[in-house]
């Protein structure tokens, strides 16, 4: 029997697929609760994220920077330089990213956010679905990206 997280990802995945097709993203479902997404940035290069949704949506997903070739996550060469919500610690700093919580990841900037209340955090805004989160990351890559943290 599918878990609640698997059902949630399955329900939201078609919207991601539609947007990926329209916007030229590469989307690959890796497991019932994870997928990789590759999106263009302002410098003409591409960045990839690995979205892990094993406790979604009771908790937000974990959005890792990802290398689709090596399968490594959160390497400096695959991570944008700090700007906006691309935090100097290397995580996407938003209540809808599990990695932003210090209780989950020591790099997480926030020990003042309650992970179980991520949907009601005012800074979550409308980013309550996987599609909304992916769009927000894609936009930041287009608007504000200023290179990679390592060559």
């Amino acid at each position: 029997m599918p878990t609640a997280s698997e059902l949630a990802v399955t329900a939201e995945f078609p919207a991601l697929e539609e947007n990926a097709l329209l916007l030229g993203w590469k989307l690959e479902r890796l497991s019932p609760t994870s997928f990789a997404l590759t999106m263009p940035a302002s410098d003409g290069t591409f960045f990839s994220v690995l979205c892990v949704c094993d406790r979604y949506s009771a908790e937000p997903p974990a959005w890792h920077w990802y290398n689709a070739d090596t399968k490594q996550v959160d390497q400096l060469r695959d991570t944008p330089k700090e700007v906006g919500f691309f935090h100097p610690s290397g995580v996407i700093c938003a209540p809808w990213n599990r990695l932003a919580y210090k209780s989950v990841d020591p790099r997480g900037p926030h020990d003042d956010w309650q992970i179980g209340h991520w949907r009601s955090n005012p800074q979550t805004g409308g980013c309550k679905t996987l599609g909304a989160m992916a769009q927000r990351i894609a936009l930041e890559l287009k608007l504000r990206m200023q290179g990679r943290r390592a060559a």
Partner: protein
Amino acid sequence: MSNDNKGPQGHGGGHNDDITLEVATPNGVFRGTFDKNTKIEDVIKTVVADRKLSVGDTFELFSGETQLTPVQRPLVSFGFSGTVKLTLVAAGSGV
């Protein structure tokens, strides 16, 4: 999830005063035709309703990296014609 729609002021496909929009949204792709003089704020309202997005949330409409503001401007004032690809993005970040 996608749907084909005619905006509230549309006049049918192929009309010179029409602009067809393909809009990526948090809930999939909206497709619809609008009169070229339709204001951005009315486009956003139509797309939010059609895609069943939360009206209480804030959404921003972009053409590439360009945010379509002020929202009182009509579609045609941004130089659009024919079929245009846009993104409707929910506000929400952190830091």
